[in-house]
């Protein structure tokens, strides 16, 4: 038996393989297609204060080794999330992390405070890639002072796990990492998508309605590895790695670099069983190499 457990903040996860926000719906979409409870944690699609319709089509386009999306965070809003999505999520035995996004600084804390009244939630992931309406649409992790402040406001509202999810579209992700650590985050997850664009040469129109979108998938894995490596060196809190993880080998690279856990994203679309296959692969790897605890591979990069 391999001990696959990892600890983040006060929470013990059965294993380090999670699913990334926006790629696993609210888990019900995957019922029957994968053993949901075998996944270390479910991170929900982003929940906002009010319902949002999302962006007009086209929202997605396939690109070499990746895809660009501009979904626009469609969701039913926090109140309907609680009444419509939580009943299924609370039947799960695995960990539930609710990803939240606000339009202004205070909104993150407001949503978290409301969700904190609801049982069955283990923690929150703060989507700092969304636009800050008061700052001309720059993301919440564009400015370390704002990232720290928003994290502090959330920290005051909850004892549950607080994970700050960072965008790679900044000059120094390490600086933002330190800011959210100062703000009281238990962990950092990175990376969200990279800004990307694709053009239809026949119509000369952008292939995404909002012109640019977020690039994800295998294409971004090298960038994600570098950003996770940078973060691991800049902060003391655990880093959860996201970006182009399609296989257990990809996941292992991130663990070696120092990630405490990983999230499978885009891969869920092509293979709804991607997360459990990643976990199975990691466990076999440990077995074959005489490693009894998964944590023993974390941060073993030889430089």
């Amino acid at each position: 038996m391999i001990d696959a457990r990892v600890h983040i903040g006060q929470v013990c996860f059965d294993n380090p393989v999670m699913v990334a926000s926006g790629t696993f719906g609210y888990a019900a979409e995957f019922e029957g297609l994968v053993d949901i409870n075998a996944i270390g944690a479910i991170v929900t699609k982003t929940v906002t204060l009010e319902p949002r319709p999302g962006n007009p089509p086209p929202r997605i386009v396939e690109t070499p080794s990746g895809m660009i999306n501009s979904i626009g965070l469609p969701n039913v809003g926090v109140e309907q999330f609680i009444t419509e999505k939580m009943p299924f999520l609370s039947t799960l035995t695995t960990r539930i992390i609710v990803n939240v996004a606000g339009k202004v600084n205070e909104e993150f804390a407001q949503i978290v405070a409301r969700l904190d009244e609801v049982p069955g939630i283990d923690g929150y992931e703060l989507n700092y890639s969304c636009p800050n309406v008061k700052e001309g649409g720059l993301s919440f992790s564009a400015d370390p002072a704002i990232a720290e402040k928003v994290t502090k406001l959330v920290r005051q509202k909850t004892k549950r796990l607080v994970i700050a999810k960072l965008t790679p579209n900044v000059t120094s992700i390490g600086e933002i990492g330190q800011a959210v650590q100062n703000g009281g985050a238990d962990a950092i997850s990175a990376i969200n998508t990279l800004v990307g664009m694709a053009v239809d040469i026949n119509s000369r129109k952008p292939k995404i309605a909002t012109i640019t979108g977020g690039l994800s998938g295998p294409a971004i894995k090298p960038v994600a590895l570098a950003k996770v490596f940078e973060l691991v060196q800049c902060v003391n809190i655990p880093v959860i790695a996201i970006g182009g993880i399609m296989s257990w080998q990809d996941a292992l690279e991130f663990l070696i670099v120092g990630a405490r856990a990983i999230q499978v994203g885009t891969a869920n679309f092509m293979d709804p069983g991607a997360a459990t296959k990643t976990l199975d692969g990691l466990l076999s790897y440990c077995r074959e190499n005489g490693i009894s605890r998964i944590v023993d591979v974390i941060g073993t990069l030889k430089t």
Partner: protein
Amino acid sequence: MPGATNDFLVKIEQINLVAQNTFRISLKQSGISRYVHAGQFVNIKIPSNEILWRRPFSVHKINSVQNTFDILFNAIGRGTAALSKMEVGQQLRVLGPLGKAFVYPENTEEIIIVAGGLGIAPFLLLLQDMADMDIPKHLFYGVKTGSLACCVEEIHQLGAHLHLVTEDGSEGQKGLVTEFFEKYLLSLPVRDKRMVYACGPHPMLVKAQELVKRFGLKGQVSVENMMACGFGACVGCPVKMARPTESKFYYLACTDGPVFDLDEVILDD
């Protein structure tokens, strides 16, 4: 769970060229062939590391004795080209059945199908599903040129009145399929209790929707969107609806569709 959507590993039983650049692949999997209804689709992993997304295909017909189901496609891009070169005995990962099927009101007295090009794909299964219904079934089938028309024999065998239309007049009648659909509607003395089904290129669907509305008929359409997942996970396939609400502003083509009522769906691009 019987009939549940699943990610099956299925074997290619047959692969045939049935018209110009048009391929039909038979796949063996009772978990799909037994439970699928016309309008539903499967999402197929192309065996190539270069191709990220699966490719969606309508289930074209089934063989309930051999537990096979077929897909019909044109080789138009990387994925479909790779599929067309697969060989009998090879295996494919197939997620399905997915999406909502065509439905008809109890009192339907005639069905009218409007298919353009590869839009014919789901309608053989529809005719199979309706084989026991002893009502007139008209199929208006438009292609650019005669060599692209397929399944003509089978359409006859399934008891449909075929109205073949080619843009160049090389076979059947010359013109656009919707022109002959319109003429037919004009020729009808009464038009209630008729159900229209449409699948094909976008301009054809727009015209079919306009005619169905103008003549006060009921109908359904199958739409094609870009799909990253096919089962509601990516929320990347929105379709505008005529009566949006705050909590449901768009439909999803993959889970709410691909079949929609013609009076509910907005077909702009």
